[in-house]
């Protein structure tokens, strides 16, 4: 037996030559790393995702996620025999690790089980301040209008070769919320997880481009110059807050209750979001939990979520026509959501005396807090005294609730 022959057999070179689509995927991994590192596209998630893509696509590395088929089964060689097992019912966690490697173990235990998105939402909640929303409660309604893109794209996608579950997963990109999109896709169409997660995070990173684009196409200079503080002076808000702290403690509990009663399927997401927020707002007596939820737990979940989502991007899962549909459909969902929020603001202005800057409608999208910052920058361009940030934060945070509710509806009716 020849040394070089043995070495060549061990390397991945033969497999890369035999199937160059691996190289395409590796190149995609490099591109995503470039976007995450150099272009600063949501690096906290895109860097782990990109590295996961890379790790998954070196042939022979055994770090790619093997997707279960429609019946929940996977096929693989075991002791030289091809076996077919139901990965949920027949394979224990140590068996998955032993036969399919640690990435599949992590994926099926942490991701496919639906565990990590709610846990990340707990951290998101712990980092969210509902204060601006409570101060401008009325503006929260734009968090509903800006879910329009989800359902609009659902209709289109369901007519373009995606089945209803796939269409729902694709459409949720319009929610502009990473964990929500991942959670929904895991329930409806897990085979599209990779492209959907990457599209969602990429478009969230592109909010500074997409929002100005949609705003330019739909809003007049007069509308964008509506100064919210002046409106407040003209039509003063009579609400006073005698105990903001108590309010902030009660609010997450109340929102959880409302959402849980109306859309039970959204309670994993909203419940954990609000739990994270609650342990933050309680203050000293639960600050140990708050610290860990918003740091250690959230970062750990982010690393493993990212790596595993990236590892689902194997050749079969990515290099097909549906990926193009996801990229295009996701963009439309995103844009239409912004459009929906803006339209609602315009309709509101038709009837109300106290006008609202349509930028506040646009930020109903979520993508907290970048959307608000971008909206504020636009407003300042048209009127250097027009600080809309705090108003935008209200619809912006409401958008997180809105998209989680939309996700719950999709899961409830299509899951």
């Amino acid at each position, binding site marked *: 037996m020849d040394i070089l022959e043995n070495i060549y057999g061990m390397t991945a070179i033969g497999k890369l030559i035999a199937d160059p689509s691996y190289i395409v995927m590796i190149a995609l991994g490099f591109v995503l790393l470039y976007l995450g590192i150099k272009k600063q596209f949501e690096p906290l998630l895109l860097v782990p995702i990109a590295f996961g893509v890379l790790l998954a696509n070196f042939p022979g590395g055994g770090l790619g996620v093997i997707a279960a088929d429609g019946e929940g089964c996977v096929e693989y060689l075991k002791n030289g025999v091809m076996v077919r097992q139901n990965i949920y019912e027949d394979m224990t966690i140590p068996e998955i690790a032993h036969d399919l490697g640690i990435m599949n173990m992590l994926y099926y235990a942490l991701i496919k089980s639906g565990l990590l998105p709610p846990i990340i939402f707990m951290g998101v909640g712990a980092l969210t301040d509902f204060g601006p929303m*409570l101060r401008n409660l009325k503006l929260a309604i734009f968090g509903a209008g800006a879910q329009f893109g989800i359902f609009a794209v659902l209709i289109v996608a369901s007519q373009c070769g995606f089945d209803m579950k796939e269409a729902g997963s694709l459409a949720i990109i319009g929610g502009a919320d990473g964990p929500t999109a991942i959670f929904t896709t895991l*329930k409806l169409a897990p085979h599209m997880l990779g492209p959907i997660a990457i599209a969602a995070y990429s478009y969230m990173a592109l909010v500074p481009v997409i929002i100005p684009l949609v705003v330019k196409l739909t809003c007049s200079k007069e509308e964008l110059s509506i100064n919210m503080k002046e409106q407040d002076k003209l039509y003063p808000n009579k609400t006073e807050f*005698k*105990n903001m702290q108590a309010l902030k403690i009660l609010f997450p509990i109340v929102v959880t209750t409302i959402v849980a009663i109306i859309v039970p399927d959204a309670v994993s997401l909203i419940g954990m979001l609000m739990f994270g927020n609650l342990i*933050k707002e*309680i203050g000293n007596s639960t600050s140990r939990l708050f610290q860990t939820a918003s740091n250690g737990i959230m970062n750990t979940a982010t690393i493993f979520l990212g790596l595993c989502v990236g590892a689902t991007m194997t050749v079969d899962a990515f290099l097909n026509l549906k990926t193009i549909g996801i990229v295009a459909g996701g963009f439309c969902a995103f844009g239409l959501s912004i459009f929906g929020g803006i339209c609602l603001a315009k309709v509101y202005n038709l009837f109300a005396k106290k006008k609202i800057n349509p930028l506040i409608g646009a930020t109903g999208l979520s993508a907290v807090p970048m959307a608000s910052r971008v909206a504020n920058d636009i407003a300042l361009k048209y009127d250097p005294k027009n600080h809309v940030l705090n108003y935008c934060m209200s619809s912006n945070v409401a958008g997180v609730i*809105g998209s989680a509710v939309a996700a719950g509806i999709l899961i409830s009716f299509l899951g």
Partner: protein
Amino acid sequence: MNSLSILASAAANSEGFEGLSGALLLMAIGMFTVFIVLLLVIYVGKCLILFVNKFVPEEVKEAPKTASFASVQAVDAVTADIIAKAVNTLTGGKGKVESIKKI
């Protein structure tokens, strides 16, 4: 993800929402529900404000809440300020704090 309720109504669902009419129905249900939920959040939120103002109008005494993100950063700012001034004083204005990072 409530398997029981979902699965119980699975037969109905899988048929009910196929095709264009199904998607349109889902849009109607979805947008309506999202609005209902956020309207409830707004109006129950307003009731909550009234409730708190009426029944727990004063701030709780154990006020200095660490966990509150804002105050934490405020403390940080104070600390940074102190250190900056200390450096300034001690180095006769020659030293300068470029950045202070918490690991």
